[in-house]
């Protein structure tokens, strides 16, 4: 008997597909891994050539891991005289690390604040985009709206130019409205950009939910809003989750508006990280450490919603 099957791929096919996927994963993960490694290097190791990439090895390609980058990321330091250093022994392990450059830690850096701004603005605008997007998508999907197609096109047209094209009008507008460099201003701006994506994605998802469910709920004694809340929303969870991920990734990574519109108060992490200066130029390990920490929330959020995201991507292609 042969084990030939037309539905099950052969072992050779599986092996080939597996190799391809792993190879692709390695290539795409390369920059992330490199950033992760650089965060634990000393400034000298970070820019050495040939590059060093083996942790803890004494060989030519090895480097000794250090938390210097992370300490520099979170602290501000000043150079001190030898006399001062001799009289004040290091207070903790972080202080000890900076002593090798004749420095002492004088306080926290702005990174924590900037990171918190990113969290507030990123998640705030994601929530608002998805919330408004769901309501709008439901209306477009279910009600007869005059000029619905034109409106949908108009909503999408906000995405048809690069953000930088409208940066100056928005800059002037925000200055007059007092929204420059505020959390609210950035949340509104990212929501405005994301809402088109949210409405279009979610409309697709809600279109796929048969109307019969709501009609049944209406007859079962519920109002339109209760039917939406109790019947449509749970079934749209997949779509809402994947939309939320896309919105968060955009808002989290956005650089152009952030660099133009935020400075002291509401500055997010993306414009802040590249400005971290060390001795004699950019402090690459500290920048890499900042990027590593910056990438984590989106990564965790995506992993948490991964199941929904996968179903979201194939949604509509496969009819149940």
């Amino acid at each position, binding site marked *: 008997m042969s084990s030939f099957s037309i539905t099950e791929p052969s072992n050779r096919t599986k092996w080939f597909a597996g190799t391809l996927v792993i190879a692709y994963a390695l290539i795409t993960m390369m920059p992330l891994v490199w950033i992760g490694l650089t965060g634990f290097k000393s400034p000298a190791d970070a820019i050495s050539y040939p590059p060093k990439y083996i942790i803890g090895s004494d060989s030519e390609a090895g480097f000794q891991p250090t938390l210097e980058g992370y300490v520099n990321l979170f602290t501000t330091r000043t150079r001190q005289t030898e006399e001062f250093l001799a009289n004040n022994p290091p207070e903790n392990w972080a202080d000890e690390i900076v002593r090798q450059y004749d420095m002492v830690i004088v306080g926290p850096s702005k990174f924590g604040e900037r990171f918190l701004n990113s969290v507030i603005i990123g998640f705030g605008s994601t929530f608002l985009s998805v919330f408004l997007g769901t309501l709008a998508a439901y209306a477009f999907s279910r009600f007869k709206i005059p000029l619905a197609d034109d409106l949908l096109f108009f909503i999408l047209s906000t995405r048809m130019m690069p953000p930088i094209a409208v940066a100056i009008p928005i800059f002037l507008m925000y200055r007059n409205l007092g929204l420059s460099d505020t959390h609210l201003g950035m949340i509104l701006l990212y929501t405005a950009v994301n809402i088109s994506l949210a409405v279009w994605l979610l409309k697709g998802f809600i279109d796929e939910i*048969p109307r*019969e*469910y709501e*009609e*049944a*709920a*209406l*007859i*079962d*004694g*519920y*109002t339109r809003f*209760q039917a939406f809340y109790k*019947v449509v929303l*749970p*079934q749209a969870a997949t779509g809402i989750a994947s939309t939320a991920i896309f919105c968060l990734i955009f808002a989290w990574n956005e650089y152009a508006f952030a660099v133009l519109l935020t400075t002291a108060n509401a500055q997010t992490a993306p414009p802040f990280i590249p400005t971290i200066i060390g001795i004699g130029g950019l402090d690459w390990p500290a920048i890499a450490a900042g990027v590593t920490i910056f990438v984590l929330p989106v990564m965790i959020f995506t992993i948490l919603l991964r199941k929904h995201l996968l179903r979201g991507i194939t949604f509509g292609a496969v009819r149940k």
Partner: protein
Amino acid sequence: MAEVVLKNVSKSFGKTVAVNDVSMTIENGAFVVLLGPTGAGKTTTLRLISGLEKLDAGSVHIGGRDVGLETPAQRDVAMVFQQYSLYPHLTVRDNLAFPLRSPVLKTPEDEIARRVEQIAETLQIPYKLNNKATELSGGEMQRVSIGRALVRDPSIYLMDEPLSSLDAKLRADLRVELKRIHAELGSTLLYVTHDQIEAMTMATHVGVLEEGRLVQYGTPKEIYEDPTSVYVASRLGSPRINILPSSIFPGDHKGPQIGLRPESIRHGSGVEAKVLRSEHLGDQTRLHLEVSGHAITTLIDPHDDYSANSIINISPQNPLYFNASGARVV
């Protein structure tokens, strides 16, 4: 339970007239079956009564009250959809309890539990109560869907081909069950079907729809024996009524078209008919005949056998006559 009255009800979708000036009184406790081919307006009629569609003209009265401006929830109707629309994120128990938990009914939880158990028993699905709705077979889903209507005690039950997706045995069981529920509770039911057995066995009244118009309304017996047109006569009866030119049979005729039910054809004398083929169905045998180029279907005793191309003689018995445009001539 309540009387439901439709007065000159009309509804169009774009240029398509779905329901055209329908007036009908569904008496309190009646079991009314709507018959008609796809597109005749049966489902739209149900949706107009339930409030899922807005009336273009006319009015709907439930229990004497004009419900034109009421929402579906306010109308106090229960509906079974053709596609079982179970809430996929809920269990069978929660699906059945859903209407009872609505803000309109707000049933106490112990009462809900009792009603749900009882309905599950009736529909033979008590062991499925804790399953997710998506884990059921098509037949089970449809039973839950019927159950979700039956847990309530509404003014009227609206059912849109509820048994069409079930297998023959379950369909027969549920037919008996629905009839029993109707008899016991004295509920008012409006029921859409294509199935003649359902129409004949369950209905107290049958309404026949043709292109949105109600063409005849009466008891199943009246519709079967006394149809007002060729169209109505063709809705009931399996095999279908034979509609033939009267002239192929000798003698005087009241109209140019003659309608012969398969069982109202006398064998043994009359015009010669050539046997095309016979179909043995077990309880009956259908004989397909040809007379002067016209196909005729008749029933014969299951034990008789006629080979193809043999000749038998047939004559009309209790014929129905129709004029050239299909209207009944009495």
